[in-house]
């Protein structure tokens, strides 16, 4: 018998579930029992809700862009999903192309090299020319202008400004 050979039946004198059974209540056993097992239904419900919530919120954006402590991205509401593209970051007065520091004067050369590497790595695809710009919200446009100009000079026509979703 399944009910008699169950783990709980073997390890406890009686169960709360058994006592509440509508088919064959075991009130007498329940009254005499010394130990009581936990009602696990609520625990499993809580676990299930947690797992579903975390799975729904799961995002890989953190792997695409790394936001440092000193960088506060601007906020926006009408946004698009982030995609993996070439990332140019401006932080603490320095420019970074894919986490590699480059001087302002070297931005054009670095973007050209990135473009050539992309074309070499994707021979059958058309070059999309997209750059994601990541900067602190207090940055002045004169600092970002160098990136926009370098992009224009190297054939990157699409700019994606990294923002926080409002």
């Amino acid at each position: 018998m399944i009910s008699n050979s169950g783990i709980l039946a073997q390890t406890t004198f009686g169960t709360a579930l058994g006592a509440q059974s509508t088919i064959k209540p075991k009130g007498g056993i329940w009254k005499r029992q010394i130990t009581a097992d936990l009602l696990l239904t609520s625990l499993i419900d809580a676990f299930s809700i947690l797992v579903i919530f975390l799975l729904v919120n799961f995002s890989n954006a953190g792997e695409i862009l790394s936001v440092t402590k000193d960088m506060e991205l601007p906020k926006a509401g009408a946004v698009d999903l982030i995609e993996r593209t070439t990332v140019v970051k401006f932080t603490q007065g320095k420019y970074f192309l894919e986490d590699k520091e480059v001087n302002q004067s070297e931005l054009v050369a670095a973007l050209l090299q990135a473009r050539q590497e992309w074309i070499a790595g994707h021979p059958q695809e058309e070059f999309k020319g997209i750059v994601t710009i990541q900067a602190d919200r207090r940055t002045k446009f004169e600092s970002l202008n160098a990136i926009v100009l370098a992009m224009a000079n190297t054939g990157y026509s699409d700019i994606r400004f990294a923002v926080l979703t409002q």
Partner: protein
Amino acid sequence: MQNNKEKKYDFELNLIPFIGFMSVCICFLLLTAVWIEIATINVKQAVGGQSAAETEKKPLLWVMMDIDGALSLDVRDAAKVPAALRKLRIASKDGKVDFAEVEKVAANLLAVEPNLSTALIQPKAQSSYEDIISLMDSFKKNGLHDLGVAPL
């Protein structure tokens, strides 16, 4: 053969492996969770790309940002837009862009020229990145989806 009359309907599920699996799942998801949601605002280069002859003439809104938050708007290639609405100036509010006024102007322009969907933003050197993004966000929310940014 088992007699149907003796069949028991009460049985206990072994929940221990299930709880173990759920615990592992929760730990993994909590450790890898990204609480900050990063997205992008997609814009185009306002200059370059195609030559003027190749570019299709579409209604266009040029927005010049001033350092104090004031905006100068210039509507081009939009025959339906009356002269009074073609060149506008939106004064700043407390040293910042007056987004309520921007919303109103965008709604007025779209009412007379529904094909207007492109706005090109020309910031100043001292314009803050946050103001530029907020302005783009405001235009996107009000139906101007094709945005461009012009370098200095």
